[in-house]
């Protein structure tokens, strides 16, 4: 390329870039952006009378039934996120810091295998394990430890949290592992040389440097679990409906797209706000440790 042609080159590069990305971009625009805009439009209009209004949102935000469902979904997702990430961090730390480099792939492979087996079957297996006549109850009864099935382990929020923490485990381990791998090991030695003990080195060097991975893990676990449909149905036994059930009931069973959309938009707003709070807390934490 000739030197005086720099601007022209940049322009032709821009054109080539856009041409190349346009099929994928148009697909996402038509099948994702347009439907999301439609949902936003429905949520802002009234069912029979039409016209723009915030009434749908008013109803979603003030009616106790919706508040209860949103609260339960948020509670389950936040618990799942906390449990999953806290359980996953030491595993990622171990594989990154204490496994020989040639064996790391194998460990990650072992961790990801259960994740590639049918999600539905995995969730159902927890029902099999925790259910009223399930593996734990029948096992304990057959060895005579209990006389009647335990009821505290099935059809409740804790059972859902356990199931989801299992289902999303690799999603938490992989990003944390990647961020731990990127840490320059000589920084840890420097910390140690400067007189920090192991724990302080971890707290002031390793943990802050791995925070991007932790935040990624938090978001990757938190976002999909808010809209989970299978677990409330199978593990909650349909008695503990969450946001996804509510959207389904509104959109399909009651055929009210407007209210259904208002719930969906509300859920997206909540997800966005909570995600931003996580990002903000992360920033504060990183500032605090410096």
């Amino acid at each position: 390329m000739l030197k005086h042609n720099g601007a022209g080159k940049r322009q032709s590069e821009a054109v080539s870039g856009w041409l190349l990305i346009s099929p994928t971009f148009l697909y996402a625009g038509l099948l994702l952006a347009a439907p999301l805009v439609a949902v936003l439009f429905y949520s802002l209009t009234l069912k029979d009378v039409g016209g723009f209004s915030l009434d749908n949102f008013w109803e979603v935000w003030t009616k106790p039934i919706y508040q209860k469902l949103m609260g339960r979904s948020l509670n389950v997702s936040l618990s799942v996120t906390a449990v999953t990430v806290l359980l996953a961090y030491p595993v990622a730390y171990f594989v990154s810091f204490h496994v020989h480099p040639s064996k790391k792939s194998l460990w990650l492979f072992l961790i990801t295998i259960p994740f590639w087996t049918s999600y539905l079957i995995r969730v159902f297996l927890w029902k099999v394990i925790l259910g009223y006549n399930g593996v734990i109850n029948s096992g304990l009864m057959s060895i005579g430890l209990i006389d009647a099935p335990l009821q505290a382990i099935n059809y409740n929020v804790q059972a859902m949290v356990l199931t989801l923490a299992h289902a999303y485990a690799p999603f938490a381990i992989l990003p944390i592992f990647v961020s731990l791998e990127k840490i320059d090991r000589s920084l840890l030695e420097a910390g140690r040389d400067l007189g920090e003990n192991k724990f302080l080195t971890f707290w002031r060097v390793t943990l802050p440097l791995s925070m991007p991975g932790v935040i990624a893990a938090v978001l990757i676990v938190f976002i999909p679990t808010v809209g989970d449909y299978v677990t409330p149905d199978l593990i909650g036994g349909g008695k503990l409906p969450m946001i996804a059930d509510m959207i389904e009931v509104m959109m399909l069973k009651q055929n009210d797209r407007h209210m259904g959309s208002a719930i969906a938009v509300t859920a997206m707003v909540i997800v966005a706000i909570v995600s931003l709070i996580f990002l903000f807390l992360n920033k504060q934490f990183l500032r605090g440790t410096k």
Partner: protein
Amino acid sequence: MKVHALRSYTIAYLVFLYAPIILLPLFAFNDSKVIAFPLSGFTTTWFITMWKDQSLWTALKNSLVISISVAVFSTTFGLFASRAATRFEFPAKGAALGLIMLPLVLPEMIVAMSMLVVLLAIGVPLSIFTIILGHVLLCTPFSTAILTSAFQSLDQSLEEAAMDLGETPLSTVWLIVLPLVMPGIISSVLICFTISLDEFIMSYFLGGNEPVLSTYIFGQFRFPARVPAIMALGTILVCLSITLLAIAEYFRRRGIAKSGGKDTGGFL
């Protein structure tokens, strides 16, 4: 931080990860209609019951059509997006890629419902085709991510050399670029195939009355008597996905070896 404690913890964690999956073969070969301990004996009845169920084969056929189409289309879309992302600078690149990757950070139920509302509003009948539309949307971000890393490890001077030796841009892509990112393409195809095969929410809501593997399995859970046959099916599926994964991992490693990179381990 004692290394031993960490190691024991990690092993305990792996046991937790594998515990439910170990139960699959256990109850698939167990001679009882009830999924409970104690085990009552060995049988292969459940595999035969499963094999003879005609609706399973219909669902499987639909699922294969869907997953193969999704693997091909998502990888094609992924190729376009990742090539543009790694090779060119253009305005609003971040925004365009953001929209393409957006399905990764949206609850799936909301994506499915938004699509459903629009499809119903414009009168598209729900079928295998609408499931494919949804799955491609979900799988394209995965494909784009995998292929972006494949393109990033590609040495651009190889392309320049081919051009200098008289190849056209198109023949350079065909002769140099595609063969070098082929391992990435294959692992993208396999991963999109697996995700699509396993996907439930979109298949359930966008499929109308067309059964696919995941909705078939979900339906069977309603009948306790059919659960052992599902355990048998699950056992087979686990074996299949481990095989597919092993193949994908093999190609990923070969790709890294080919481009002279160092293996940093793991998918995604």
